[in-house]
């Protein structure tokens, strides 16, 4: 059962993240700490064990489904925002467009367009 032991690894890293947060009071989520730890471990080992790949790949593919229950909550608070939501929507849409353009423009200036190799 390689996927199962890989899954145990992922859970362990997440739990380690929880412990780290408990002792350091870092305002970061344990998932992110676990992710960085996993990346560091793999870099030290120099390869991805089949067990981790077997557990990580399907989980990454399911990310969209895992955030769905939280996302659906939005439709149930629309009533509470009467009169405010048009301003919020404009701010989010326009702000995101501006920020995406800035990010890409900045990256293009800093990296340039590499030639296709």
């Amino acid at each position, binding site marked *: 059962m390689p996927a199962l032991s890989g899954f145990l690894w992922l859970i362990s890293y997440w739990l380690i993240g929880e412990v780290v947060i408990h002792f350091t009071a870092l305002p*970061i989520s344990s998932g992110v700490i676990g992710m960085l730890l996993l990346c560091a471990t793999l870099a030290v080992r120099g390869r991805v064990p089949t067990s981790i790949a077997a557990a990580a790949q399907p*989980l990454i593919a399911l990310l969209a489904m895992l955030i769905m229950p939280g996302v659906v909550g*939005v*439709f149930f608070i629309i009533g509470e925002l009467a009169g405010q939501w048009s301003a919020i929507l404009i701010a989010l849409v326009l702000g995101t467009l501006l920020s995406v353009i800035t990010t890409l423009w900045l990256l293009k200036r800093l990296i340039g367009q590499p030639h296709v190799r």
Partner: protein
Amino acid sequence: MSADTPLLTLLTTTPLFAVGLTLAAYLLGSALFQRLKRPSWLPAILIAALLLAGALALIGLPYATYQQGATWLTVLLGPATVALGMPLYQQLPRIVELWRPLAICLPIAATLAACYSLAIAWLLGSSDTILASIAAKSVTAPIAIGITEQLGGTVALLLGALLVTGVITIPCVSLAARWLHIDDERLIGFALGLNGHAIGTVRAFEISPTAGAFASLGMSLTGIFTAVLLPLAWRLISMGS
């Protein structure tokens, strides 16, 4: 309606009902997305979320009850976030190659991602609570919830802001990339993750594993950067005013 209620109560005693509902909406949403020839302005997750919200309203299941059952799925978000360490490692050589431009770009872009929307909302006269709720709009959900609680915002509104931001990021990136003549998957992925958190990252993995890895990188760096600096900056600004 009243005849349905005992049945509904019976079904919702087990989390399997909420889990099954979520799986059904997800699969149906994905199938519809394929049928519509994968439109970039209507991501699969939005179709699925609309279907799910419609189903909940139709059968009269309160969101809180559904959410409780769906915890069986959402608890997997933790290990799934950890799993992103794998593509991150696999793309490490390409990331190291670009560390300098990424290190310069990230603080500026992550700060602006929050500031643009805050400035616009403030100009349109939004209340402090709303500003606090949308400040972390480009940060991945588990981190953003922590930030929003520190700032004194509403978590439900934050999740809404996350959805809108994530969904709108996808067409914005394809539009801006075309406009700026960018076809480098690394840049597109990084921009998707930095601005559109998990939803942008999911989209980037649909483009290619490289784009996905850069999106995971952009998402996690933005999350860490914002988590550390936004509460601090917020406190300074509140003290000043």
